């Protein structure tokens, strides 16, 4: 039946969206609509203020019925944003959603050519022409469904991970919570009180921790790390390395072993302010409570038991030095990344003297000091003489909002300092408190009141960070010297102790996580959401979500909120129980097939079976993710890459090179990185030359050499192939094929005496809009110098391809 539908004469409706002034401000939408109406098979062509609005959608539906349209094009924003919306519109009007195509005239046009209305409009026309060309050749398709494994993996056992785990587990889903430290709890466990309510942090966290520990639906994997992630939304296969604790579940946390252990070390949990043993538990409320042996410290090395004090002390015989690491293979449907963040290391700011002056501490050290369960039993003592200081100074924005550290605001430091100043005042009203700040950011619910209270309690807020902190050799007191930027005068303050309000930064291991889950990161290094407004906890990779500081610095409340949101998003998927696989998988065309097996060889998912003897070729639907690199590899047109067919893409090229080909850059961008990068450039209003024409493929691996050659044979000035960075490919390593093919083409161009500079390869992540923009600028510059003969030559040598 699909073929029948395909055979009926195409009747196309084109809708050019103003998006308020977002598009119309730059592009002459009426003119574009006008132009569209002249294109073959276009029955209706109108411009509309907001295509995505109900009204806009209604119009489309109405037209489909009245003019019995069998194809629809919407020229508006990025398909990554609204394609789903309009596909739904079509379906509601009884039109198969695969007969819809978008022209991205906002992110890729109006926003990036703000100052060249004419060129922008021309570009918009081209993009519409290409869309129409493609939509004409589109075929209806029925999506196949894949079941979703109803279990979730959560990476990171901080408060975000804990919350997400509880929410999902309570909903009834199996949850694997992976934490690389010996205990869950994260940073919240280290903090004394929470702002603005001044709750005891561990008191409100501990119950949640033990809930997770005992929840029948939660499998807690501490001291463990994710090693490998395979599969796709709803069907991930995850390898987790469970490192040995050397203490079995028999452990009753009686501490006997720790007491006899002769080896001591600074306890990480107390930021080194307290001592632990080689066999220990990080803190009293740790979950699991099972102890752990630090084998780097322990005297027993290389299988030789030098010391067996703990073993003999343990009545339950819970200590086993022969535990081996084990690799667990988990099958999960959804994944939540809650890997948290790290703190800024102020020792890289010599002017504050951290690590040189004993009485300069970080806000994290402060939390442990002020904590009743901490090393000083809650006494605010200064390390040098263990006395309570008469005055304390807080220095804000240490490592935040500065070229010396991180550019961004760490979000929590202001409130944390305000909270800390109140804590001091509460216990030791006479202690003088100075807060040196740049701005005080007390934007959240109840924050401003807290700020007021701090001031009322007598904390002195001085705008302007000290330029330098100097220690008084005798008293070990500290001089803070800087400028009060409000009173425009220099200050010189002497205090007993300085607290550096250190910022939050991405975990060092983030790049590993990024690769494992094929995520993107912002220039700050935090993980990037699928859409900053509409999909704030999704990642570009289906089935993977974000929560907590891994996504950006945030306080406990926001982390928990985001965690619940992520849990809900994951829950929705699993509740549906199935995902529909986009109908973009290849269909073999046996009559063309030579059964050479090349397609099978390049498939990253081994989703193609080729049987040379019995002359059979088969595509495994469930395993295939539609990257299309097989289609690009096939030189016999034996693979019909649904929705991205050779004919469709060639038609797009033809459309885009119909006029002034020689002035144009034809760009093939992969959906996940390069295309998204270009979108990001648009969102960020980065300006670049208007001559580029972007064709979207799912993966750069789809770009068949013949597309490039065809573009040149059509006289295109230049061609850009852009995809994800190697290792970040959303189809494992399909983009390695891209590289091979482009390199082959370069050789060929050299051989044929064509300027190989005209073909460019770009790796750009979804966050690297600027990278895309500057590449286009650079290519434009080359293009301007290009001689017409060169264009002709290429036309000639590639003619017929």
């Amino acid at each position, binding site marked *: 039946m699909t073929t029948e539908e395909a055979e009926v004469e195409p009747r196309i409706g084109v809708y050019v969206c103003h998006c308020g002034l977002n598009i119309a401000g730059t592009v002459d939408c009426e003119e574009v609509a006008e132009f569209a109406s002249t294109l073959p098979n276009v029955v209706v062509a109108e411009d509309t203020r907001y295509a995505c609005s109900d009204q806009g959608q209604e119009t489309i539906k109405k037209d489909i019925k009245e003019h019995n349209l069998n194809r629809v094009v919407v020229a508006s924003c990025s398909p990554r944003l609204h394609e789903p919306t309009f596909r739904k519109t079509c379906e509601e009007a009884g039109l198969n959603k695969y007969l819809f195509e978008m022209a991205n005239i906002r992110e890729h046009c109006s926003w990036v050519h703000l100052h060249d209305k004419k060129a922008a409009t021309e570009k918009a026309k081209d993009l519409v022409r290409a869309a129409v060309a493609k939509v004409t050749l589109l075929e209806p398709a029925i999506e196949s469904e894949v079941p979703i494994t109803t279990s979730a993996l959560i990476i990171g056992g901080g408060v975000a991970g804990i919350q997400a785990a509880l929410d999902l587990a309570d909903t009834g889903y199996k949850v694997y919570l992976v934490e690389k430290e010996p205990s869950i709890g994260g940073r919240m466990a280290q903090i004394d009180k929470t702002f603005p309510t001044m709750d005891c942090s561990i008191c409100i966290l501990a119950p949640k921790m033990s809930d997770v520990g005992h929840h029948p639906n939660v499998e807690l994997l501490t001291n463990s790390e994710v090693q490998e992630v395979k599969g796709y939304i709803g069907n991930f296969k995850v390898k987790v390395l469970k490192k040995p604790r050397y203490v079995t579940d028999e452990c009753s946390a009686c501490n006997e072993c720790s007491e006899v252990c002769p080896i001591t070390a600074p306890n990480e949990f107390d930021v080194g302010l307290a001592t632990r043993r080689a066999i220990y538990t990080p803190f009293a409320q740790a979950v699991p409570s099972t102890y752990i042996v630090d084998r780097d410290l322990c005297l027993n090395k*290389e*299988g*030789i*038991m*030098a010391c*067996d004090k703990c073993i*003999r002390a343990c009545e339950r015989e819970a200590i086993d030095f*022969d535990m081996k690491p084990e690799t667990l293979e988990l099958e999960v449907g959804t994944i939540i990344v809650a890997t948290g963040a790290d703190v800024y290391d102020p020792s890289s700011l010599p002017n504050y003297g951290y690590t040189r002056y004993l009485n300069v501490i970080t806000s994290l050290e402060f939390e442990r000091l002020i904590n009743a369960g901490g090393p000083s039993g809650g006494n605010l003592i200064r390390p040098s003489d263990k006395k309570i200081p008469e005055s304390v100074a807080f220095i804000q924005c240490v490592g935040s909002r500065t070229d010396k550290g991180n550019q961004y605001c760490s979000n929590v430091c202001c409130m944390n300092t305000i909270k800390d100043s109140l804590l001091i005042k509460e216990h030791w009203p006479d202690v003088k408190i100075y807060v040196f700040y740049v701005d005080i950011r007390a934007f959240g619910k109840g924050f401003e009141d807290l700020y007021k209270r701090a001031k009322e309690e007598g904390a002195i807020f001085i705008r302007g960070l000290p330029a330098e902190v100097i220690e008084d050799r005798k008293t070990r007191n500290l001089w803070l010297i800087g400028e009060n930027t409000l009173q425009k005068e220099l200050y010189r303050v002497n205090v007993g102790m300085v607290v550096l309000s250190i910022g939050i930064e991405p975990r060092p291991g983030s790049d590993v996580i990024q690769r494992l889950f094929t995520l993107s990161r912002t220039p700050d290094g935090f993980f990037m959401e699928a859409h900053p407004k509409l999909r704030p906890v999704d990642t570009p990779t289906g089935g993977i979500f974000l929560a907590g500081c891994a996504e950006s610095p945030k306080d406990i409340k926001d982390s928990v909120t985001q965690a619940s949101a992520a849990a809900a998003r994951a829950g929705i998927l699993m509740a549906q129980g199935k995902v529909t696989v986009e109908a973009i998988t290849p269909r073999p065309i046996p009559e063309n097939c030579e059964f050479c097996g090349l397609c099978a060889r390049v498939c990253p998912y081994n989703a193609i079976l080729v049987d040379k003897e019995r002359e059979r070729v088969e595509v495994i639907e469930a395993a295939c993710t539609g990257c299309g690199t097989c289609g690009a590899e096939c030189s016999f047109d034996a693979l019909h890459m649904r929705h991205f067919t050779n004919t469709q893409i060639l038609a797009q090229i033809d459309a885009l090179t119909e006029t002034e080909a020689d002035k144009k850059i034809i760009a093939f961008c992969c959906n996940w990185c390069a295309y998204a990068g270009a979108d990001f450039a648009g969102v960020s209003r980065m300006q670049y030359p208007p001559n580029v024409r972007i064709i979207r493929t799912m993966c750069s691996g789809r770009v068949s050499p013949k597309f490039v050659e065809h573009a040149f044979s059509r006289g295109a000035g230049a061609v850009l192939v852009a995809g994800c960075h190697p290792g970040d490919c959303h189809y494992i390593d399909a983009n390695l094929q891209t590289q091979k093919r482009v390199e082959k083409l370069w050789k060929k161009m050299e051989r044929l005496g064509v300027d190989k500079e005209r073909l460019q390869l770009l790796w750009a992540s979804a966050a690297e809009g600027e990278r895309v923009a500057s590449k286009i600028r650079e290519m434009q510059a080359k293009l301007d110098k290009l001689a017409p003969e060169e264009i002709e030559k290429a036309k000639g040598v590639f003619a017929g391809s």
Partner: protein
Amino acid sequence: MNQGDRMTQHPLAKYLRSERMPHIWCEGCGNGVLLSSFLTALDELKVDLDKIVVVSGIGCIGRAAGYVNVDSFHTTHGRAIAFATGVKLANPDLQVVVISGDGDLFAIGGNHFIHAARRNIDIKVICANNFNYGMTGGQYGPTTPLEAWTTTTPYGNIEHPFNLVHLAAASGAVYVARWTTLHVRRLKDSIKKSLQKEGFSFIEVISPCPTIFDRYNKRGTAVEVMKWFRLISNVKHGYDPARTEITNNQIIVGEFVDVERPSYGRLLREMTKRVQEKLKEEKAK
């Protein structure tokens, strides 16, 4: 003060016939380490020293029996296990431990070993394996590695050695472990475990022979041999005994067998009880 007196200060002194210290063993010989682990095991288990018998055969380690301050017997070459069998069966209240060498237990005494294991006689056999006949000056034995140099393999050993762990397991031992003399604590724990377990236990102790075998085979000083043990030994509990053969680059150590099987003594006593009850009944009629 003389050495005997000084011995008595040592925490293990009460388990030793201190007056016979220092022992006859060479510098760096593993036998002393084995003995000390054994005594530590007795100490930690608080064993009733009146109820334990140590039996040894011939060879360097054979002298161990003479040093332990318990009932002990130094038998003829290879016969320790047979003698121990008699002791254990005749007085089941005694804990009988055989401490002997690879040559004594597995060449001349091999037959007694496999049969005692098969019968599951409730005795504990600890074997010091130094890969040669040390006391007679370093001749090759049943555990000497292929190609090794000994005084009777001047052109290199052409015999294949026994894998004692495999042999013991195949013969029916209910507990089989192997450690080197560097794994003292684990060795001690294995000894403790075997002492608390009913049935035929076998513990192989890979032991340096610095004066003879290791010197002949250029393995260096005792310390170097011990370091080599550390380098190539690999703890694999529960590993298939058939695959634990010792090679030049790996000594697999650990507990390989730990199963429950009624001992000969238990079965004998049960049978006796049955028979005697039957006789009583018959008499009653």
